[in-house]
């Protein structure tokens, strides 16, 4: 029996490493070392209920497991074969306990290609990766295929870049392969900066070798012998596992000189990002790797012509790479049979926000939002009403009720006014104000703009200021028109992808929720009750029992009232923190 303990960042944050130690100890104490193997794996994706422990082979899926549960798990499940019911996942819709992952809605519709090894193998053990067909694709390419043949497989598979742009990967490789140079570079973009997307990190944490393997293949295809992984310094666990993986791969001769006797040399180095979203843009990323400010430069020249240190460079994102070995092993035809006409394969999404099953999911292109939200995601949290899904992060837009049934792929999302982006998918409910959401994204863009070009540097600042005025009820209808024109000009004139997409959250919320904008402007009202300047908290006299909970929790002591008497909020002092509303058990506080 194998006990797989999730060792992803999310679960680790809830002490899964301690849980692992406790389980190991229990297994030892019960002399079960020969029967039961406790293994740390990468992320299972079901981050909502971490830490996760999965029992193999029966697929029992335990959620929210604490270190203190280890004893019971070993005594009951391992020793006696009895499931520990209280740790089983409960379906939020019908409140039934679900015994194994095969029956969980969260996993039913998923197809795991990029995440195939996450939650399956121990990422710190190359042997487990090798056992899971690891480096077989690399061997096949290096020894049995020409670069052209390998590129053709990638081209035919229809794989498109998963980092946001959606550029055909095979084509990118082909261009880079055709540029002659004494030295070329292969770069893995692991500078995932989209707030709310963490698939790249999960892959690196759960299956680092797959990225290395794909980079070797990429290097062979374009004629590069050096690979660089540009990774966020904020991802310590991913860095650590990557370092272990590189060390093991070198030790096994899978990186280095004359790999598998093919005569091909390739090695990989790690470069650290330092917290700049714009470095996800490939020219900015390259400047950053060269020790410069991560400011993008105009393309052309493209990195494939002149990239790192002026040499032809191919940049791909982590998730893109994670698909490569499978495509080589199973063939272009197999891969292209999944997905829609122009978007092949699967896409990993980070499902988050007001949804029951927060987590990382991998679904075939062409799945509908409805399936993702209601079947995989288990519906909206707390039974609230669905309002919108934000995809593509700060570059994307909002999808609404009317978009629920369109098949998700690169082109459909753009047509719907959003974009795939790196795969963040934030679900919002009736309590979210769309103007405030747009403002949130603009705040992000303003902070992350590099400042090189005027429309992005000044324009986004002005957009944010305008949105701020709207949320304060200080804007006019004329301002809304200006907002739209400014948004369009920023898109039209900015230097790089950041500025070219940063107004999307504004444009798409204006398109889909214009009423909300108008309500803020003309009625000075925030329909969702979010914008502090436009709301006030009041006590509903008939519901107030005078329990004093609100008054005791008010941080500025602006609520007065005797015990068992109706309380009163002093609107002048109130800072609208909402503490009273949270504390009131009698529905006696209302947002007006």
């Amino acid at each position, binding site marked *: 029996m194998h006990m797989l303990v999730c060792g992803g960042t999310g679960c680790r944050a809830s002490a899964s490493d301690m849980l692992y130690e406790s389980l190991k100890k229990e297994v030892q104490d019960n002399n079960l070392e020969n029967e039961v193997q406790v293994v740390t794996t990468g992320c299972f994706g079901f981050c909502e209920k971490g830490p996760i422990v999965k029992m193999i082979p029966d697929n029992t899926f335990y959620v929210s497991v604490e270190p203190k549960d280890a004893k019971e798990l070993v005594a009951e499940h391992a020793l006696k074969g009895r499931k520990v019911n209280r740790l089983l996942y409960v379906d939020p819709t019908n409140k039934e306990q679900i015994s194994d992952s095969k029956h969980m809605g969260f996993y039913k519709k998923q197809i795991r290609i990029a995440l195939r090894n996450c939650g399956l193998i121990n990422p710190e053990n190359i042997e487990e990766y090798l056992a899971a067909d690891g480096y077989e694709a690399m061997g096949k390419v290096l020894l049995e295929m020409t670069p052209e043949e390998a590129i053709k497989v990638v081209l035919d598979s229809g794989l498109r870049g998963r980092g946001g742009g959606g550029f055909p990967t095979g084509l990118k490789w082909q261009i880079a392969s055709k540029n002659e140079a004494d030295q070329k570079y292969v770069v893995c973009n692991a500078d995932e900066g989209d707030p709310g997307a963490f698939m790249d990190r999960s892959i690196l944490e759960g299956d680092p070798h797959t990225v290395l393997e794909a980079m070797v293949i990429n290097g062979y295809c374009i004629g590069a012998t050096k690979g660089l992984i540009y990774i966020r310094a904020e991802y310590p666990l991913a860095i650590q596992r990557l370092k272990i993986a590189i060390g093991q791969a070198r030790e096994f001769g899978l990186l280095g000189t004359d790999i598998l006797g093919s005569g091909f040399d390739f090695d990989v180095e790690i470069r650290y990002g330092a917290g700049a979203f714009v470095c996800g843009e490939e020219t900015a990323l390259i400047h950053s790797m060269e020790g410069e*400010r991560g400011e993008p430069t105009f393309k052309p020249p493209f990195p494939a012509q002149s990239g790192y240190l002026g040499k032809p460079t191919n940049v791909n994102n982590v998730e893109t790479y994670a698909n490569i070995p499978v495509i080589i092993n199973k063939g272009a035809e197999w891969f292209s049979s999944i997905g829609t006409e122009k978007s092949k394969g699967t896409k990993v999404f980070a499902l988050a926000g007001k949804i029951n099953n927060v987590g990382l999911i991998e679904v075939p292109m062409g799945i509908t939002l409805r399936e993702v939200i209601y079947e995989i995601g288990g519906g909206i949290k707390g039974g609230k009403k669905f309002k919108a899904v934000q995809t593509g992060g700060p570059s994307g837009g909002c999808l609404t009720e009317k978009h629920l049934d369109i098949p998700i792929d690169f082109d459909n999302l753009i047509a719907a006014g959003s974009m795939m982006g790196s795969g963040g998918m934030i679900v919002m409910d009736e309590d979210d104000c769309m103007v405030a959401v747009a403002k949130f994204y603009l705040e992000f863009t303003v902070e992350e703009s590099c400042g090189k070009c005027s429309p992005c540097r000044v324009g986004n600042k002005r957009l944010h200021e305008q949105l701020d005025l709207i949320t304060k009820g200080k804007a006019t209808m004329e301002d809304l028109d200006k907002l739209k024109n400014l948004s369009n000009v920023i898109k039209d004139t900015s230097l790089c992808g950041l500025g070219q997409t940063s107004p999307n959250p504004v444009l798409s919320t204006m398109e889909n929720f214009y009423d909300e904008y108008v309500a803020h402007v003309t009625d000075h009202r925030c329909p969702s009750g979010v914008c502090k300047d436009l709301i006030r908290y009041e006590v509903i006299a008939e519901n107030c029992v005078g329990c004093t909970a609100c008054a005791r929790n008010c941080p500025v002591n602006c609520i007065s009232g005797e015990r068992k008497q109706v309380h009163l909020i002093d609107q002048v002092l109130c800072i609208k923190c909402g503490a009273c509303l949270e504390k009131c058990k009698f529905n006696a506080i209302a947002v007006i």
Partner: protein
Amino acid sequence: MELIKLTIDNRTVEVEKGTTIFHAAKKLGIEIPTLCYMNLKDLNIEHKPGGCRICVVEVEGRRNLAPSCATECMEGMVVKTHTVRVLNARRTVLELIISDHPFDCLICAKSGNCDLQSLAIKLGVRDIPFQGEKSTYKPDFSPAIIRDMDKCIMCRRCETMCNDFQTVGVLSGINRGFEAVVAPAFERDLDHSECTYCGQCVAVCPTGALTEVDHTKNVIAALSDSKKTVVVQTAPAVRAALGEEFGLEAGTLVTGKMVAALRQLGFDYVFDTDFAADLTIMEEGTELLDRLTRHLGGDKEVKLPILTSCCPGWVNFFEYNYPDMMDVPSTARSPQQMFGAIAKTYFAEKINVKREDMVVVSIMPCVAKKYECTREEFATDGNPDVDFSISTRELAHFIKSANINFNALPDEDFDKPLGESTGAAVIFGTTGGVIEAAARTAYELHTGKTLEKVDFEALRGFDGIRSASVDFDGVDIKIGIAHGLGNARKMLDDVKAGRSEFHAIEIMACPGGCIGGGGQPLHHGDSSVLRARAKAIYSEDESKVLRKSHENPSIIKLYEEYLGKPGSEKAHHLLHTHYFDKKSKQVLLD
């Protein structure tokens, strides 16, 4: 060369492959506006960050507008430069830039000469639809340059000049997003940085963010003080550029009008820095010959090459970057300082004016000169040899403010004796001139023969680094020339590494030498004006009867009456200097 055909605004144009839309349009006479693009062709500097986004145009088939300065032409491309979409975008972007810019044009030093202002006029901007936060920074007043970064539009031209061309590396883009600006390390003031005050940042700044310290007020105060005798000296490069400020074509010599204007402004004596340039040749040439003779005689201790020391930006650069080589440059002071020293001693005695009652003003193509005259070693009991240095631009303003119709002025001559000069002195104003002047004198002094052909064509030109051999009657003297501090650095690194075979090297901090100085009329990115100025300088040289410094009668007289001979103790005291290790000083200052 492969040719490409494209259509711009419905007109067909054929250009070389690699040409940008911006230049292709120019070929058709379509001037696409820009704020950040800068092409100093003669200096091989093309700055195209594609940052301002003013020059965007519509290219058929492209999703976004394309920056014409950075987009290369392609066969069959269809470009539109003034569609509604383009005009709306251009105006909106300009409005955005202005929305983060002070509205104090009336009192801005760059008013009337500001690219941003011109563009706002051109596009007829009347209101700014987006009011919001404006960037504010602490103004930085150094002895020579004022940084008012509230007016910075992030064109980054200064950064390119300071880093790529000058390799001084004082300015860098800092912060990001709305807070991004160009600044010295830790946003310290320039006088706490390794700034050489070469002023090339000022020369290329499109707005009032970088300007020179204005001393005109002090000069007016001195002129109106009846107790003061005010003496003015004008640098050679000024006369070749001043006319541009009055609408004259670049390269128009205005020496006589300038002298007349200075007299009208009330200067008591209008002298010429050229006089001091001849004096410099006497001192520096003697030093060169001395070192050379010793070297040829087998003296292993003697330091060669000798480096010229007339350029204060270069001296600063040297003091910060090569403190271990301080015995290499000539000890001769710059012409400005030699002039000041002689004016306040020899000449003051002659006209019987006390040192403290004399004010020496210099008109310089330079902003570093402002700093140079404040150096402590160039003062006696706290009284500086040169009191104020004003730039060509400041002089032009001064003349305009005095209601002088410059172009209608008659030509007048400099006063004597400190106004007399030779052709050798005039060419100090352009790259290669100092060393050519030195060669003319050194040749005759060394060989004892008369130099038949005074024009050393091999030393002239605009290449950043040049070298030539001069035949001193059988002895090959190897001469190196660099202008621009980046080129100087290359040359100095060779000297330091022992790879240099030069006997003498001339270095000027600014592109083209003083004619391209930081205090000259703004070239607005048109580097051809530098060539025109150089040509004017050489033509003045040619028109002179005397073209060798040692033939200047006033100089001969000065030595006879006062200094003795070149390199004498008195000459050393008044005309030579020493250098400081500013690298270590910098650390102490922090």
